[in-house]
């Protein structure tokens, strides 16, 4: 199979190179938004819910369509509409200080709730408040509850404060699925839970999950055939929200996997907005979400320097598979509970440090770069400590950039570029300094001589 498919598009005169999977995912996502826009006329129920630890398989078992307000917000960001929406929300009394995802969503709602494909999004029949990894979710749906006359199902997923998901916590989540979430879905759809359908969806998830993990781990190779951050959020990961548990997702990941296999065989780097990356110079681990309104620009800053992200935490926000978790049709509700609890932002800081340090080592990264976003306390609070700890444990330098997810006021391109370049220079210097590990991309571990850290803080 051919690894690449070339199309002409993007800005005038520019050639964009895309993998088949990239086009496929675009079609699938567009198809989902179209289905959403027709939901009411086709008699389909719509459930708004959140990405982290989402219950997509359960929703499929009820044949309802999930809609993720966070995805609306990020799509608004990518289409450069979030800035206006945020201002509108602030005009309505929302504080400048709070999570901009919420404000972007509220602004979009006020502007007619038109989704990324230009089609109007349906109101929810149920707000499924899957309260995992972020306190803001609760406030977000309190705000939406006032906008829509529909029931709310609250699913409280305990935080793994002590680094474990205990039997009691699991039971608590399963009990809520049984006593709160499933009955509300039954009430809204007028159907009983189809257990066989749920199990089938879980089995499909697990197949796709194996392929997803294989794809993400392919970045351990040199050169890496994928970019596990920009590529990770653009076409590798997003498919995992509304489609998990479907044949389409199984097929998609199979396609993606074979594509990546071809790239591996041919020792090709990832496709970037600048075309295929042929000169992998830096291998980075990135912690934190990207900045959606400047996504391409941000990515190009990396690809222009030959920097490839080999592992990222943001692609583990939906769910975390590194410790071997897979959805399991033999223990349906328990495995949904485990999935909910395991998403990256529901893990405590010691676990996050451990994961990032492990990524640096296992993916032979040259450094850890944190993109700290103003919006998200769940991610950001504690990141400065994470940076220091990972540096200390791995010996690789850390870098720190501050932007926002969707608020363009907090993305200063010149500043970000500057910091990134200085950071990469520092990695370069560290390689040259005596005692630093050798190799074309540098290697993790080893000497702590040379410049240790980029001072970016006031």
């Amino acid at each position, binding site marked *: 199979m051919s690894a690449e498919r070339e199309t002409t598009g993007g800005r005038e005169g520019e050639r964009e190179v895309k993998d088949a999977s990239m086009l496929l995912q675009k079609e699938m996502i567009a198809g989902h938004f179209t289905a959403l826009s027709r939901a009411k006329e086709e008699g389909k129920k719509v459930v708004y819910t959140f990405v982290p630890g989402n219950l997509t398989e359960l929703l499929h078992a009820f044949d309802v369509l999930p809609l993720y307000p966070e995805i609306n917000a990020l799509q608004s960001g990518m289409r450069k509409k979030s800035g206006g929406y945020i201002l509108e929300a602030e005009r*309505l*009394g*929302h*504080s400048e*200080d*709070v*999570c901009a995802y*919420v404000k972007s969503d509220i602004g979009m709602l006020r502007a007619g709730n038109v989704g990324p494909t230009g089609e109007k999004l349906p109101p929810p029949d149920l707000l499924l*408040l899957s*309260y995992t990894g*972020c*306190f*803001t979710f*609760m*406030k*977000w749906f*309190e*705000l939406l*509850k*006032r906008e829509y006359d529909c029931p709310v199902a*609250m699913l*409280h997923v*305990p*935080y793994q*404060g*002590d680094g474990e998901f205990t039997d*009691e*916590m699991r*039971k*608590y989540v399963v*009990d*809520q699925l049984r*006593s*709160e979430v499933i009955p509300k879905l039954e009430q809204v759809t007028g159907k009983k839970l189809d257990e066989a359908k749920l199990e089938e969806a879980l089995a499909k998830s697990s197949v796709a999950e194996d392929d997803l993990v294989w794809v993400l781990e392919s970045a351990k190779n040199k050169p890496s055939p994928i970019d596990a951050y920009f590529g990770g959020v653009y076409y590798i990961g997003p498919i995992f929200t509304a489609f998990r548990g479907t044949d389409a997702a199984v097929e998609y990941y199979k396609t993606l996997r074979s594509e990546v296999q071809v790239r591996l065989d041919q020792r090709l780097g990832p496709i970037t907005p600048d075309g295929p990356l042929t000169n992998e110079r830096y291998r980075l681990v990135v912690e934190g979400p990207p900045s959606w309104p400047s996504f391409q620009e941000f990515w190009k800053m990396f690809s222009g320097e030959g920097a490839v992200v080999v592992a990222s935490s943001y692609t583990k926000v939906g769910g975390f598979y590194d410790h071997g978790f897979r959805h399991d049709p033999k223990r349906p509700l328990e495995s949904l509970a485990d999935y909910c609890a395991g998403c990256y932002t529901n893990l*405590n*800081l*010691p676990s*996050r*440090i451990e994961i990032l340090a492990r990524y640096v080592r296992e993916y032979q990264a040259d450094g850890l770069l944190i993109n*700290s976003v*103003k919006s998200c*306390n*769940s991610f*950001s*609070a*504690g*990141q*400065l*400590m994470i940076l220091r*700890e990972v540096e200390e444990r791995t010996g690789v330098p850390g870098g720190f950039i*501050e932007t926002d997810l969707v608020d363009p006021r907090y993305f200063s391109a010149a500043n970000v570029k500057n910091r990134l370049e200085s950071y990469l220079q520092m990695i370069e210097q560290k390689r040259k300094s005596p005692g630093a590990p050798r190799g074309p991309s540098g290697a993790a571990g080893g000497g702590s001589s040379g410049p240790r850290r980029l001072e970016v*803080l*006031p």
Partner: protein
Amino acid sequence: MHEDSSSGSPGATPRLSAVIARCEALYHDVDLRTVHDWRAARGGRKVVGYMPIYVPRELIDAAGMLPVGIMGGRGQVEIIRGDAWFQSYICQIPRSTIELALTGRLDVLDGMLFPSICDVIRNLSGMWKVKFPGKYVRYFDVPQNYEPEVGGRFYREELRHLYADLRRLSGTTEDADETLRRSIARYNENRRVIGELLELRAKEPWRVPTYESYLVLFAGNVLPVEEHTALVREYIAAALESDRPRRDNARVVLTGAFCEQPPIELIRTLELAGCYVVSDDTALGRRWPTEDVSTEGDPLLALATGFLRHSPPTAARYEPHGDRGEPLVTLVKKQRAEGVVLAAPSFCDPALLEQPILQDTLDAARVPWTAFKYAENLGQFQVIREQAGTFADSIKLWSEP
């Protein structure tokens, strides 16, 4: 404009002044000298700190240790290292708390509890685990599901774990249930006298300025419960004796200050600007739950039930019925308040995200409100004073027949 009261406690008797002076000293004691003294006097008994809003202090007390509320730096701690730990867009309380710890002021604590309130305090629990490995650290979760068989069962388990940990930490061998029942009784009594104090304030706010009631409640962060109960009683008795003029102030509810505490000068500023604060959510954990916890049967179940049934409404708790605005309007009516001051710490997502809801509901109920942000280390009060003064004046103007 309203006439200024002089500083200190106007109209206070020597008895009242003595109580307030003691509370002020405790408030300013960021080095926790009182706690060191308590410990020294008891042969080095252990101490466990906790952050806002709520932890069941009964468990710490029953395990034979002193629960100590760590409510940020109160603007009295110069932030030198804290800023290197938190980005500029995160509220003040975690940075002052870490500053307190890094400067050794929390060394007296053997453990620290981080209640479930928001992502910042949640993540701070992990920072503590990494930076202070010798201490007992726990993120303390509370249920957002209020069904006894679901959230109640989970919460009882959380309590059981915590209590077992705390008993291990203190090394106590006393009867677990019996000591816990006794602690519950002591805290019930404490909450009852606090309730009396706050009722008196709502009824006769000129007798009980919030500047004082706040200090009296704050003292409960560091005093053993029975000592604090005695202090509250002493204050009530002294306040009743004192003769203070009744002013034509506006009765307001202050809300949004449940975590990072407003500087005490800010509370005084509101009062000087012509507001009687007849209800507020500062030091909310001291009045949680709002009714007695049963001292019969399984004490852990009793605490869990108390939480499910009698938790005050606040931003960090899910409101299964209705929305967050309704309890506020109910409170306004109950306290016969004439307006609401929506105060929120800068960058506080829980408080700020719900402000539009609260504002809409207040508008619909025709309750006047004003809103501002603060930080615990705010040093200038002029703007707030003017805002609060105008607010109080407008309330008085429109409420006149």
